[in-house]
């Protein structure tokens, strides 16, 4: 066991071979998104080692683990946002409805947005259409320097040509789903930068769901928010899982326990244990998970 805790140079081959197999639950529902044996490297530094992640439809999947264990990295591999940085790359498989989005040979046509501009990246995968199907919300709120309305409409305009009336409907619906409508309905043309942190984060959620993605990825979305805003955001996410599938990274164990259906515990770039949330917290099987969820380290 010591061999995991002792920091080994991440590139050293024995780190991948030295651990016991991950403890994975057998999926019961339909898998929307799935990572299989995913490796990820930042240049020469490998940060993920053979990670498996099954994401079931209309569930909230939480990723926990000490900081630096690779939660953000895993999330960023799932929508290929890392593509914009040369030198970062993933190997293994990420399946979206069974379609491999890492290998660029997958049948791209099915990933294509219904209409609108299609941007092909050099490798041939239509990442633009991919990202219309997998949305992302970041740790720090990232409102664009434009009106609240335009923030929400931004992604929709990229992928679909809509009339003003249609767009009005989409903006209103998205803001309602993100539980922000009542607070901003009278100032849709005001700048998104003028909202409070919690409101900005819900604006980012609204912006993400306005394009109707299948999956919404959130990377510690509440870590910059006060408890009241956090509670609102959590309530929003619980509501959203009726229509969307959510993967959330959090360093807040109570939060994972409160809102998620499944939880994956990661450590040193590996998935250690992935199980229904209640089971993972009440009866962790790996000693490492037990140490973490009982607060003995991390």
């Amino acid at each position, binding site marked *: 066991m010591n061999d995991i805790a002792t920091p080994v140079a991440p590139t050293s081959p024995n780190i991948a071979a030295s651990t016991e197999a991950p403890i994975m639950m057998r999926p019961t529902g339909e898998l929307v998104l799935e990572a299989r044996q995913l490796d990820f490297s930042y240049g020469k530094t490998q940060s993920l080692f053979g990670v498996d992640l099954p994401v079931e439809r209309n569930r909230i999947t939480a990723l926990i683990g000490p900081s630096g264990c690779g939660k953000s990295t895993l999330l960023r591999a799932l929508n290929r946002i890392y593509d*914009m940085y040369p030198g970062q790359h993933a190997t293994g498989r990420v399946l979206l409805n069974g379609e491999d989005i890492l290998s660029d040979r997958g049948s791209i046509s099915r990933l294509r947005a219904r209409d609108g501009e299609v941007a092909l990246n050099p490798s041939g995968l239509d*990442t633009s259409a991919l990202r*219309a199907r997998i949305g992302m919300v970041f740790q720090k709120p990232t409102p664009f320097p434009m009106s609240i309305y335009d923030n929400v409409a931004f992604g929709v305009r990229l992928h679909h040509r809509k009339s003003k009336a249609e767009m009005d409907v989409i903006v209103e619906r998205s803001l309602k789903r993100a539980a922000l409508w009542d607070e901003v309905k009278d100032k849709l043309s005001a700048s998104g930068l003028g909202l409070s942190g919690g409101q900005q984060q819900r604006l980012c959620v609204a912006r993400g769901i306005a*394009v109707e993605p299948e999956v919404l990825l959130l990377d510690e979305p509440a870590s910059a928010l006060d408890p009241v805003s956090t509670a609102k955001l959590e309530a929003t996410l619980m509501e959203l899982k009726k229509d969307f599938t959510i993967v959330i990274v959090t360093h807040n164990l109570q939060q994972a326990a409160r809102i998620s259906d499944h939880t994956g515990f990661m450590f040193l770039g590996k998935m250690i244990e992935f199980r229904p949330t209640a089971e993972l917290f009440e009866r962790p099987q790996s000693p490492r998970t037990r140490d973490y969820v009982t607060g003995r380290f991390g």
Partner: protein
Amino acid sequence: MDRAFRRKLTNGVFVGACGLATIIALAALVLILWSLVKEGVGGIDGKIFTMTQPAPGSPGGLKNAITGSLMMCAAGMAIAVVVGILAGTWLAEYGGQTPYGHAVRFLNDVLLSAPSILIGLFVYEIMVAHLFGHFSGYAGALALALLAVPIVTRTTEDMLALQPNTLREAGMALGAGRGFVIRSIIWKAASAGLLTGGLLGFARISGETAPLLFTSLGNQFFSLDMAQPMASLPTTIFQFALSAYDDWRRLAWVGALLIAVAVLAVNTIGRLLARETHRP
């Protein structure tokens, strides 16, 4: 002496030195502005804007010089803003870390501190000596543009580099391409900074004399033809201030005051606009 006292003393000395330097700088500025106003205000009348430069002893104004300066500065800034923003964007968002990018940044920094008289000579060689065969407003505008480009480029790069990467990622996470994210999000987020770059560039070129002496030369008649030699405030000030005639020297003061007021006004308006666009 104990440590706390030494630290207090050091702190006191340096705060004092900073204060003194500020006072000296402010005093110089106030003195300059004061003498400009004192000598210049009296000469401002309707004729300044309606009549061209006079022969010594007869009534006249600065109409030709003001018009020429406005036209050459506007043309120069138009070139500088387009080239500078594109170059700065390329450095910040695309090629800045490549060897070619480093070379471009280095050359830009060299240009930034190049003596303006060299820029004037360079444009003279190309446009005046060879292309046109005579002095022209175009040559003046180009020289001014070359002076402003490195400033706009540098400011643009710095301002774009200040924008957080998560903003770019947020745009791309919605499916936007890199270029679209830059045009529709990053430029907007940095708009106040980009405007500042333009203002700095304008402030730099509006008073430049040396490069214009080699390029647009000057023109004692009113002219809107940029293919011909063109008058400008700085060259007129240069000519008049050194002259032996009191009325010419008075006009030089007025010209200097006009430039100072223009730079001040443009800067103030720019700041206000920037604050306006950034107010949430």
